[in-house]
């Protein structure tokens, strides 16, 4: 499994396409922290929310990075769709974790508000949880499931918008409610978002096993 994760990270990193979500995310945090972004946790919610569609985008890139013959050979070498699905998810998570680190460091350096250790850890957790949620949702929109790129982008946009507008719909809404509006506790919102990510990833894995 480690070999497969390393393989997916390597072949994805060598595709220029992976630069697109990275640049978009860097642009988001650049804009957020261009001026005084406000208290640390509240400021961090916007880049964290952006990590949901970015995570979904990266998952789709990782899952589609191989052409069909190479994807089939990898699948046979790994011996099961489940192993390949988890390998792709972990590879996407490595890219996502990198973005979480960038977002946290950028905030720490650019935002003139205090960043005590507890707040930094909360920001890291928020970023990681939302990127995992994005990867899980992205898995439902990625090969081998037969969702076209356009349909996948549309579905991801709708999910993100609904979660932004309808505040009780995870994964984004409850996190914003907790850390931006301070209306609810943060822990349950993060757990809810993580559950959404893992459940979506699990469903995608089950569907992939039946993919023909």
């Amino acid at each position, binding site marked *: 499994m480690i070999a497969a994760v390393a393989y997916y990270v390597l072949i994805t990193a060598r595709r220029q396409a992976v630069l697109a979500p990275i640049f978009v995310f860097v642009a988001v945090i650049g804009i957020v922290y261009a001026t005084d972004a406000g208290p640390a946790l509240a400021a961090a919610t916007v880049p964290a929310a952006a990590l949901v569609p970015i995570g979904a985008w990266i998952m789709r890139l990782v899952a589609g990075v191989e*052409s069909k*013959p190479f994807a*089939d050979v990898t699948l*046979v070498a790994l011996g099961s769709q489940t192993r390949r699905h988890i390998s792709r998810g972990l590879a996407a998570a490595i890219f996502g974790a990198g973005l979480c680190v960038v977002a946290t460091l950028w905030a720490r350096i650019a935002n003139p508000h205090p960043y005590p250790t507890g707040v930094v850890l909360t920001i890291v957790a928020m970023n990681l949880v939302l990127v995992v949620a994005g990867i899980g949702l992205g898995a439902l929109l990625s090969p081998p499931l037969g969702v076209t790129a356009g349909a996948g982008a549309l579905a991801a946009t709708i999910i993100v918008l609904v979660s932004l507008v309808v505040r009780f719909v995870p994964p984004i809404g409850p996190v914003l409610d907790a850390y931006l509006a301070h209306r609810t506790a943060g822990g349950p919102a993060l757990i809810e978002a993580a559950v959404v990510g893992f459940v979506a990833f699990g469903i995608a894995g089950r569907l992939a096993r039946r993919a023909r």
Partner: protein
Amino acid sequence: MSALDVSGLVWWYRRGEVVLHDLDLRVESGAIASISGPNGSGKSTLLRLIAGVVVPHRGTIERASRVGYLPQSSDEPPVRLRASTWLDSIAKMKRSHAADADTYARELGVDEALKGPLEALSVGTIAKVLLLGAFTAHPGLIVLDEPFAPLDAKSRDALTQMIGRAAAAGAGVVVSSHDEMPSLSGEHYVLQKGKLTPRSPDARRWRVLTSSPDGAVERIVDAAGRDALLRAALDAGHEILAVEERT
């Protein structure tokens, strides 16, 4: 010991057309099964099922734990890796190593190509690298979908020997082709109307290459034709350059 045991396999396309009907196939370790059939008969689907790329609608497939698979040749772009790095990655995924890849690469004439990136290689060379991926890491079952199609004559001979050696080392080998294959020992099947039927010896074809005053003459004939042709060639004082079985 069985490298592959297919029982009651049923497969249909999304539009409902049944491609494989209650199909059974058993390949022992060290045995070779070659499958031929016309285009669209379901050979590639059968091999994808055997390799584990897709799951059957009905029936069971038991296979050796380590499988090497060559998909049908295509011109789709490869991954952006050095060929040797890709082979190493595939071997590691099989929980082995690609130490034997160099030997196979020399036989197929792609040892130099392994040092370069896959995307710089021709379709034919990529097909050979994929072939190496199927053979490396000592698989218990090797599944090859039309492996001879993109190869030149020299590489076809090398592949025939590689298949024979892999079988001798204990691997079960399943090979498909829609046309003539170089001589392979083992069981020969024809896939038609969703069923595998053993190919009768009478149906086998032979390639006979003889000399003549106008140059070498090649003919593909059945067993009776082969005998007649050889007799005629010898009677005429011509040289027999090659006689090989095609499946």
